[in-house]
């Protein structure tokens, strides 16, 4: 180097001083190299160490590293190199049995039978010998004639038996094979080959249980287990599931190769292609090559493959329709792909385009009714019209439309979507023309009329439904509600009585029927038909139970006052005000509630001033000491009056008094259900600030309940004369949604979730990022204490 001549890499390597590392350094480097799988380097370093310090410990280390390197080479398939390493290792100054056993074991695994047997002669422990002999047996089986020749005569006989048994099993001579295998003893190194063969016999006789039983006894590291693995993979689900994915793929490939149809690899390729949406074209090209064989070998699978691709096109592009047609031809049920395109456009939210394609498809069925057995063609067309109606109706859903609020915010003119042609109503009518007994269409039409606020048409549609389905309870109930809303209490009672007949034990229906009797009774009182009224009050009482009785009694008392039967009236008042420890299946009616009911009835029926004064006093006394039941009940009455549009002289003052009463009650210990009802009642009364206050209280006391943040948000959304504080409303809605989603599904929860989604969509219909960031549409909900800014009680 002093001469300055260039030094080659090899020279450099040779010139490197070999003992520059201390023994400790060497040990560390050896450990690191072994740990990192660099066994060749570890071997070089260990040789240096052993040369430098030929201690027994270093010799042990050297032996370990030699074995490690040999195993590494074997696992890489370099068995010759591995054998060279073992050969060198065998010259180490150690002739212990343990070391020789290790060497023999590795040599056998590398398939070197002769040298293994030489080493085996030096071993005296029978267990060690047996352990190595099984590896020798495996090596001999793999090497066929050469392997046999290398074996001692005793082992050759067992190997011959196994080979013969294999030939017999292959030829279907199972009995002969069984007899041949009898010669393999329990101590034979070929015992596991016997188990493999017995398993294979069972497998080929379709006795999977016995096959698995035999194969379960195989040593996983040995050759018989590796040969049984693909078969076991096919029939043993637990074994299959226990394999890592790479092994599963390998075993699948092996079993396909051994037992499968030549179609399988191609189909698996298809499977892989279809996992990617953008590879449909490639998949269809692959099908083109596969189809001739499939048609020849398993023609019954061709329509199934076609169906599979037909529906996959929905996830792909329209160009693939042409490719599909070229490969499979036109599908018999949808020769022009109108149905597929209709469904595809529906999926993409393009309902107008879907409408067009559904019409085309309906016309296609109408032109070829013979393709559908019996009268199914008409029903199929009816279904299509029904679906078109539902699409047209869904397009009216505010969730599918940008909200006015956002257009206003951005200063845009709202672009109205074109009307559906034919519109929803016509579609449903057409569907019913074709199949008048299609319940779903009747229901859809009914829903449509209700959603579009057409109660008269809804009533007509409900009656039409009942002509075909006279026992449809939901429709009977709905008709009763519609009649009740338009003040026809007699008709309302008639429908609900029919519904009750269908299910006389339904408590909800009994209660609704009782309510209908009460309403009709009150109408009779107004028109001075007291006898009819009494009859209905009595029936209402008979059908009701618990706290409802007291309400009915209060109304009945008012009736008797009007009828001039003061004694009977007083008796009823006493009954209503008494607290006989009634069974409460509903919320209790507090005395203040009875007083308020009586007062409203006295005012509504314009009864004597003395009565008015008396019940006013009662109410005043009741309002002096607020309680939870009173707050809930009074707001319930006022909400009912507000919702029903009922007014009477003094209502405004009563409302103020009740609001003041509940304000005083705000710190009382309300139950969760009481708070929920109170908030809902206040919302119905349009007392929005109060509703928000109690929703806040509910949210603080019951933080897991989604109803409170939801009602809080609603109290802002429904208060239309105020600017909506999005920063407050949106996080509440999102919190309500996440809390509701964590609850088990039920009708109330689902309805609430649907409504929350609707409002969130209305507040940000285009899912604009900047709005999301501004108002918290995305990201975690920030919990704020929600103090109401405008606490105007």
């Amino acid at each position, binding site marked *: 180097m002093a001469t300055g001549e260039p030094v080659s890499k090899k020279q450099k390597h040779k010139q490197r001083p070999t003992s520059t590392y201390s023994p400790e350094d060497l040990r560390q480097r050896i450990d690191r190299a072994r740990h990192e799988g660099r066994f060749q380097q570890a071997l070089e370093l260990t040789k240096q160490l052993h040369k430098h310090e030929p201690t027994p410990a270093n010799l042990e280390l050297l032996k370990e590293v030699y074995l490690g390197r040999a195993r590494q080479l074997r696992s890489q*398939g*370099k*068995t010759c190199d591995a054998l060279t390493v073992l050969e060198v290792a065998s010259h180490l100054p150690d002739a212990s049995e343990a070391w020789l056993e290790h060497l023999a074991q590795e040599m056998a695994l590398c398939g070197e039978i002769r040298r293994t047997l030489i080493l085996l002669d030096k071993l005296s422990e029978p267990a060690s010998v047996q352990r190595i002999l099984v590896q020798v047996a495996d090596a001999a*089986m*793999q090497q*066929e004639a050469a392997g046999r020749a290398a074996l001692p005569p005793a082992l050759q006989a067992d190997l011959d038996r196994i*080979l013969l048994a*294999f*030939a017999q*099993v*292959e*030829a*279907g001579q199972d009995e002969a094979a069984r007899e041949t295998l009898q010669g393999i003893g329990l101590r034979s190194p070929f015992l596991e080959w016997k188990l493999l063969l017995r398993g294979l016999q069972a*497998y*080929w006789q*379709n006795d999977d249980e016995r096959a698995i039983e035999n194969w379960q006894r195989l040593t996983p590291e040995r*050759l018989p287990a*590796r*040969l049984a693995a*693909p078969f076991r993979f*096919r029939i043993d689900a637990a074994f299959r599931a226990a394999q890592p994915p790479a092994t599963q793929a390998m075993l699948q490939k*092996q079993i396909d*190769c*051994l*037992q*499968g*149809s030549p*179609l*399988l690899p191609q*189909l*698996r390729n*298809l*499977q892989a292609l*279809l996992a990617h949406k953008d590879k449909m074209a490639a998949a269809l090209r692959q099908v083109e090559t596969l189809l001739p064989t499939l048609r020849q070998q*398993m023609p019954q*699978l061709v*329509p*199934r*493959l*076609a*169906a*599979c691709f*037909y*529906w996959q096109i929905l996830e792909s592009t329209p160009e693939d329709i042409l490719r599909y047609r070229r490969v499979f031809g036109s599908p018999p*049920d949808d020769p022009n792909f109108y*149905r597929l395109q209709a*469904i595809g456009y529906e999926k993409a939210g393009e309902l107008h385009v879907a409408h067009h394609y559904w019409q085309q498809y309906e016309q296609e069925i109408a032109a070829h009714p013979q393709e*559908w*057995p*019996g*009268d*199914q063609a008409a*029903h*199929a067309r009816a*279904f*299509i019209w029904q679906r078109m109606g539902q699409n047209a109706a869904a397009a009216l859903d505010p969730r599918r439309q940008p909200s006015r609020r956002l257009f206003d915010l951005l200063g845009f003119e709202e672009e109205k979507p074109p009307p559906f042609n034919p519109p929803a109503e016509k579609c449903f009518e057409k569907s019913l023309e074709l199949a008048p007994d*299609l319940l*779903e269409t009747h229901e859809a039409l009914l829903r449509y009329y209700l959603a579009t606020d057409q109660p008269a048409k809804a009533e007509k549609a409900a009656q039409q439904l009942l002509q075909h389905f006279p026992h449809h309870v939901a429709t009977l109930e709905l008709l009763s509600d519609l009649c009740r809303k338009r003040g026809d209490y007699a008709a309302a009672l008639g429908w609900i009585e029919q519904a009750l007949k269908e299910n006389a034990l339904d408590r909800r229906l009994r209660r609704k029927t009782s309510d209908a009797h009460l309403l009709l009774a009150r109408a009779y009182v107004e028109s001075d038909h007291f006898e009819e009224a009494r009859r209905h009050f009595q029936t209402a009482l008979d059908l009701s139970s618990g706290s409802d009785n007291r309400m009915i009694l209060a109304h009945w008392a008012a009736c008797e006052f009007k009828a001039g039967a003061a004694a009977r009236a007083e008796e009823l008042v006493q009954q209503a005000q008494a607290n006989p420890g009634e069974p409460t299946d509903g919320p209790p009616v507090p005395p203040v509630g009875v007083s308020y009911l009586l007062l409203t009835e006295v005012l509504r029926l314009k009864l004597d001033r003395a009565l008015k004064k008396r019940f006013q006093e009662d109410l005043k006394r009741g309002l002096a000491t607020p309680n939870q039941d009173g707050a809930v009940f009074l707001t319930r009455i006022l909400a009912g009056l507000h919702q029903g549009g009922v007014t009477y002289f003094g209502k405004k003052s009563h409302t103020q008094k009740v609001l003041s009463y509940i304000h005083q009650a705000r710190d009382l210990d309300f139950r969760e259900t009481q708070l929920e009802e109170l908030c809902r009642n206040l919302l119905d009364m349009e007392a929005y600030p109060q509703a928000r206050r109690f929703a806040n209280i509910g949210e603080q006391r019951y933080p897991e309940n989604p109803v409170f943040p939801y009602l809080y948000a609603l109290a802002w959304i429904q208060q239309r004369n105020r600017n909506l504080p999005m920063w407050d409303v949106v996080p509440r809605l999102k919190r309500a949604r996440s809390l509701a989603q964590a609850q088990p599904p039920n009708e109330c929860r689902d309805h609430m979730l649907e409504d929350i989604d609707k409002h969130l969509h209305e507040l940000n219909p285009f899912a604009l990022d900047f709005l999301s960031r501004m108002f918290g549409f995305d990201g975690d909900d920030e919990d704020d204490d929600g103090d109401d800014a405008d606490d105007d009680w």
Partner: protein
Amino acid sequence: MDDPHVVLDLAADADDEAIRRRYLELVRQFAPEHHPEKFAAIRAAYERLRDRNARVRYRLLEAGRKETIESIVEEITCRSSRRRVSLKTLLSILPKP
């Protein structure tokens, strides 16, 4: 197997009565206690065909929709005969050194 007609082994134009008769026959044959999976498949197939509306709805919107390449592969695998192979063939699947 997705096609309910195939599961119940019925013609495509079978009517309500034929479908119900076949269903009861199969349910007796494959009681849920002894053949839970088969029973579930029969039940599901019957639900799709039990009345005219169900049949039309199925054919219109669901037929073939649950078909997958996986189920076709499964079918081919099941139908592939378990042919016997020689030791040589068996050894040939092992990776070569």
